[in-house]
C-alpha cells in the first residue's frame, strides 16, 4: 500500500496537490507514481510565469524506463519551480512528497474541490 498523506489532494494522473497559506498550490507526483516509474533520471520543469489550463502538460519526469508527462492539476500561473529536484531527480524516488515540482497560483481555487481526496485516490491505485 502506497503512502497517501491525508492532507493532500490528488489527480487520477498521480499528481499530488497541497494548498499553501499564501493561496498558491504545490504540485508533485505521488509515491505510487514514483514507484511505478522506477529510477527517475531527468525532470523538465515549466518556466515561471507560464499559464496552464487544468490538464495541460506542465512538466516531464523521465525514468530509466520511460518519459511521463506531468499535468497541471488546476488552471493558473507558475510562480516557482523546484530547481533542486531538477538537479537531483532521484530525490523523487527517495521522497515523492518532499520533492515537489512546481507551485502554481490558481485562477480559481475552488477547482481544488474537483480533485480526489486521499481516500478516493487510494481506491484508484488499489489494484
Amino acid at each position, binding site marked *: 500500500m502506497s503512502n497517501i498523506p491525508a492532507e493532500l489532494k490528488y489527480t487520477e494522473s498521480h499528481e499530488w496537490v497541497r494548498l499553501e497559506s499564501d493561496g498558491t498550490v504545490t504540485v508533485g507526483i505521488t509515491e505510487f507514481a514514483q514507484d511505478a516509474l522506477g529510477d527517475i*533520471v*531527468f525532470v523538465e520543469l515549466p518556466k515561471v510565469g507560464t499559464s496552464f489550463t487544468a490538464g495541460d502538460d506542465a512538466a*516531464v519526469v*523521465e525514468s*530509466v524506463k520511460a518519459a511521463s508527462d506531468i499535468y497541471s492539476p488546476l488552471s493558473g500561473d507558475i510562480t516557482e519551480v523546484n530547481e533542486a529536484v531538477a538537479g537531483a531527480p532521484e530525490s523523487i524516488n527517495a521522497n515523492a512528497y518532499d520533492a515537489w515540482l512546481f507551485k502554481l497560483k490558481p485562477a480559481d481555487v475552488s477547482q481544488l474541490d474537483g480533485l480526489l481526496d486521499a481516500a478516493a485516490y487510494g481506491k484508484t491505485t488499489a489494484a
Partner: protein
Amino acid sequence: MTLKATPLNNAHRALGARMVDFGGWDMPVNYGSQIEEHHAVRTDVGMFDVAHMCVVDIRGADVRAFLRRLLANNVDKLQASGKALYSCMLNPEGGVIDDLIVYFISEDWFRLVVNAGTAEKDVAWMNAQNHAWGTNLTITQRRDGADAMALIAVQGPNARAKVWVVIPQAKDATLDMKPFNVALVPGTAFGEAMIARTGYTGEDGFEIGVAATQAEALWNALAAAGVKPAGLGARDTLRLEAGMNLYGQDMDESVNPLDAGLAWTIDLVSERDFIGKAALQAKGQNAQFVGLILREKGGVLRAHQKVIAANGDTGEITSGTFSPTMQQAIALARVPTGVQVGDTVHVEIRDKKLAATVVKLPFVRNGKILAA
C-alpha cells in the same frame, strides 16, 4: 489473454518482483531498483530469468548443410564441438526473422537459442525449410512439454566463481572454456546442465540451461550463493551499454541487417548460398549503426527519436536509455552513411534539438567505459 509464465514465476513473486507483460510473458522488470541490479551485474554478479527464450534442438545427418543455407553467418566457423556462433536468420528479402545463437554439440546435433517472441515463427520457418529441402531433420522446441528446458543467465565479473560454487561439477568443464563456447555437464544437483560462456550484458558469465523442473532449485541456490536477481529492466540497460541489438527494436523483418550493425555476422565472402543473400547483395548497406551520447540536458534518448546530421540528412534512434554506468543518456541509432564517429548530430526530444556525439559501439565492456 492469459500471460505465459516461465518455471521461475513463483520465485519472482516470492522475491516481490514487479511483474510486467513482456510480449505476452509475465516477467520481472525489477526486484526493487533496476539501477542497483544493473550495477550488481557490472561490479559483482547478477542473474536473469531468460526461460522465455526458446532452446531448439536440430538433429540429423544433414544438420550442418541445413544451417549453411538457413543462417546468414557461416556455421562452418563451428569446427570444434562446444563452439557457439551468433547469427541472423533471414527471409528471402533479407529481412531479419530472428537473431540467435547456434551451439555445435555434435555433427548430428546443433542447438539454437532463439528469442521469446519469435520462437513459434522461427520453428515454423525451420520446419518449412526442412520440408522444402527434404533434409529430414528432427526440429524440437524445448520450451514447452515434458522435455522443456529453462535458461538462467548469470552475468558479472564474479559470475563464473559463483556458478562453480553452486554447480561444482561445472568447474572442470568450464575453467579453461573461452567465451562463446558451451559444455553439457551431467550429474549436477540440477541434472544435466548446459553451461555456455555467453551472455547479453557485456560482462563475463554463463547462460545455464537445465530441465524446467530444476529451474527454481537452481535459481534459489544461486540466490543463496549471493547472486542478485536482476530483471528485464537491467537486462535492457546492460545490453544497450554493451551495444547489443535487441530483436524487434534495433532490427526486424523490415530492416536490412547491414544497416543494423550486423554486417559482421553476415557472411557475404564464402561461396555458400543462404536465404536472403541475393537480396542483401542487391541492396547493399544504406545506413550505419552507431552509438550516441547526449551532450545537453533536456531528456533521455529513446527509440524513434529523429537524428539530424550536420548536412541535414536524418536517421533514427532504435534503442535509447539512461546509462547507469555512464550516468548519461545513450542510444543505438541508424544514421546516414556519411556520419562519422566523433561527429556531432542533433536529436529531437519533444520540442528541442539537442546535441549528441556519434561514438563507436560498445559503450561499456567488462565493467569499463569505452565510449566517452
